């Protein structure tokens, strides 16, 4: 079975999603355990694959037994093996959390919800492990369609937000497809590695069609990842969706698209084309600086907890896009490490927001009033997530920012370094405001006694185990990722070291 592990990463949740669709209406109780079991299988397969990649190097898995470029292949190297582990891990934790949340939020559509949930993870995993540019588009469609539906299944505002997302997301996907079409016209191939070889063999890097393909693909992917000027769809979609949906989409959708950007930029077009021939890294790093600042400052203005977190995602996307375009080894390492770290820290804070919403029914941060005494374990989970987003050691967020800042310094992009530091300070302000409300209460100045007695009687108590466990597991994962950062960076470096950044590189 070990040779089949790459395929099993996504086939297990895929098959189970169909079974959930077939049997879930009749036996509603099986949806949750089946989903969790399938994702455990997926995590096991992706960890096995990561182990093989570390030992044996790149794994190629031919679908249908056809040799690429005739058939489609999975091509798994250190980068996507690592991202696949993160994606399936985040999926598993969100699935465990979903047990009560789905029953509370979409009680009559449980089987549909889990079918779409598993298909979303299938689509994301497929995008991560595929080595074929068109196959990536097909799985992009699977994950996009499911995410529209998962958002729209929320309350009324969510449907409107999802409608906006459908329009903008479809434009993004079309741009990507257009770019792939241009590449096919010029190279006659769809396999990512083969396209790159053909580009070199035919020596058509100067061709305007390739330039346009690069631009439309990059812009399409930027739309999908909500890079700053193209982010309008994200905050409302994630803020009003059912809590499980935002707990899975918030961490994964944008991160997987950043992986796609790295994969296409480096593997299909090559770093020489993107960084030396075009030399746009200054402009794009400045754009990411604007994205970081705009995301952070917008987050500061929000009182809705999940909306605030959604704007933080936009700032984080700025970190990673900037990190890639620093055109520096350390920056790229930082970006990839940040994909992993940010997936878990976003999951952590969105799980927290979900628990608060399900428990109190309120979206505002005032819902957190005095929660330290009532839900101490939940708040511990939040603290770790918040420290990671702020960047306090030894959490994962500190190390990813450390590598990104090193990259910024090494490549001389001081504006990026300053933006990162400002954004960290804003995160500190945001989360200490939350911690203050949760620890001291909303109005410490007026009416102590009454206030306390009111909330103590009617207030919520600790969340149930199925909600608390994923939150604390995510918090633990953040610490583990932080403490073992050298091992993870060693894996990432084996990917990054293939590319030379020309004169800039170390």
């Amino acid at each position: 079975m070990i040779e089949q592990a790459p395929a099993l990463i996504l086939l297990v949740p895929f098959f189970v999603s169909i079974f959930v669709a077939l049997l879930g209406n009749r036996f509603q109780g099986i949806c949750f355990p089946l989903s969790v079991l399938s994702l455990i299988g997926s995590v096991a397969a992706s960890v096995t694959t990561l182990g093989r990649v570390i030992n044996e190097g790149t794994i190629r898995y031919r679908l249908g037994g056809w040799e690429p470029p005739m058939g489609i292949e999975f091509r798994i190297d250190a980068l996507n093996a690592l991202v696949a582990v993160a994606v399936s891990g985040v999926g598993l934790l969100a699935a465990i959390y979903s047990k009560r949340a789905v029953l509370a939020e979409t009680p009559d559509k449980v089987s549909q919800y889990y079918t779409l949930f598993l298909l979303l993870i299938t689509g994301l995993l497929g995008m991560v492990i595929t080595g074929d540019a068109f196959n990536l588009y097909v799985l992009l469609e699977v994950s996009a369609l499911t995410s529209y539906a998962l958002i729209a299944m929320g309350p009324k505002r969510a449907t409107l937000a999802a409608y906006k997302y459908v329009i903008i997301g479809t434009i993004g996907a079309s741009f990507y497809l257009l770019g792939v079409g241009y590449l096919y016209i010029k190279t006659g191939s769809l396999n990512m590695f083969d396209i790159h070889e053909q580009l070199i063999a035919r020596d058509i890097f100067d061709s305007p069609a390739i330039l346009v393909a690069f631009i439309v693909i990059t812009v399409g992917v930027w739309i999908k990842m909500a890079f700053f000027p193209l982010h309008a769809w994200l905050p409302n979609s994630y803020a009003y969706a059912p809590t499980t949906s935002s707990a899975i989409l918030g961490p994964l959708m944008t991160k997987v698209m950043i992986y796609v950007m790295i994969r296409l930029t480096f593997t299909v077009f090559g770093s020489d084309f993107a960084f030396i021939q075009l030399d746009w890294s200054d402009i794009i790093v400045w754009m990411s600086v604007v994205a970081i600042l705009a995301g952070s400052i917008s987050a500061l203005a929000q009182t809705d907890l999940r909306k605030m977190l959604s704007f933080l995602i936009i700032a984080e996307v700025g970190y990673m896009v900037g990190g890639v375009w620093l055109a520096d080894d350390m920056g790229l390492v930082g970006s990839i490490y940040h994909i992993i770290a940010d997936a878990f820290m976003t999951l952590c804070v969105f799980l927290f927001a979900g628990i608060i919403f399900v428990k109190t029914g309120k979206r505002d941060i005032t819902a957190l009033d005095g929660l330290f005494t009532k839900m101490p374990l939940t708040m511990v989970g939040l603290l770790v997530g918040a420290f990671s987003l702020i960047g306090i050691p030894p959490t994962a967020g500190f190390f990813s920012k450390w590598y990104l800042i090193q990259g910024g310094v090494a490549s001389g992009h001081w504006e990026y370094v300053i933006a990162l530091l400002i954004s960290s300070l804003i995160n500190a302000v945001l989360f200490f405001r939350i911690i203050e409300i949760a620890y001291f209460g909303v109005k410490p100045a007026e009416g102590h006694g009454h206030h306390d007695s009111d909330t103590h009687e009617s207030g919520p108590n600790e969340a149930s185990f199925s909600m608390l466990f994923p939150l604390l597991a995510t918090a633990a994962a953040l610490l583990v990722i932080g403490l073992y950062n050298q091992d993870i960076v060693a894996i990432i470096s084996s990917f990054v070291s293939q590319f030379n950044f020309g004169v800039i590189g170390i």
Partner: protein
Amino acid sequence: MSAVSDFPDWGDPNSPANSYRLSQHYVTETIHETSVPNMVTAVLADYRGYDTMFETVVIFTAGIAIIGILRRFGNDDKDAAKPTLYTKKPDLIIDTTCRLMIPIIQLFALYVIAHGHHSPGGGFQGGVIFGASFILLAVSRDLQAAQKWVPEKRILNLAGIGVLIYAGFGLGSLLLGQNFLDYAILHKIMPATPIEARSHSMLGVEIGVAFTVTAIMFSIYSNLASNGSMKEGL
């Protein structure tokens, strides 16, 4: 615009897409490797069968998504006005015409599905035609009449089974020790040579696609037409 001027000429036999070994291989080797005369189907269902499986999943997802968003279970649609305008007696001409047409449409759909690997056609096209025949039934009578033939539960089961058939061919080859969707190994459980097994499996997956497409076509129509109540409407 500047990119378009850079494209190879229309129909140029030496353009990259035509001259590269990929298309060459498809054109010259398809019949030997898969014994399927229609190379479009061979590329679709075999060389790039993994893509097509997920295209089927996209359709399946669309159907589930429409149900997830629109479907209203229970009797909470009191406020929905009864469409008195549409309560009509069956019109003799429409009724008779559709009664004649529907079996022929369905027969043609089956032909398109079954002949996908010999002539233009296949699961997607045939499935759409088959689904259209149910929609015609719903339009010519009313949704209830069509629901009698294809109730909602059966529709969902059909859609799921369709995807399962496709994926089952993949899983079969995986269990027999080859890679996912490598149909050739299926000759062990089929009375055929490895190459013929590819051809037969393609027919099999086309049928799976047709199941899903038929079911989802009608499911989307009935959810949209009845505003999610599955009761009345057009």
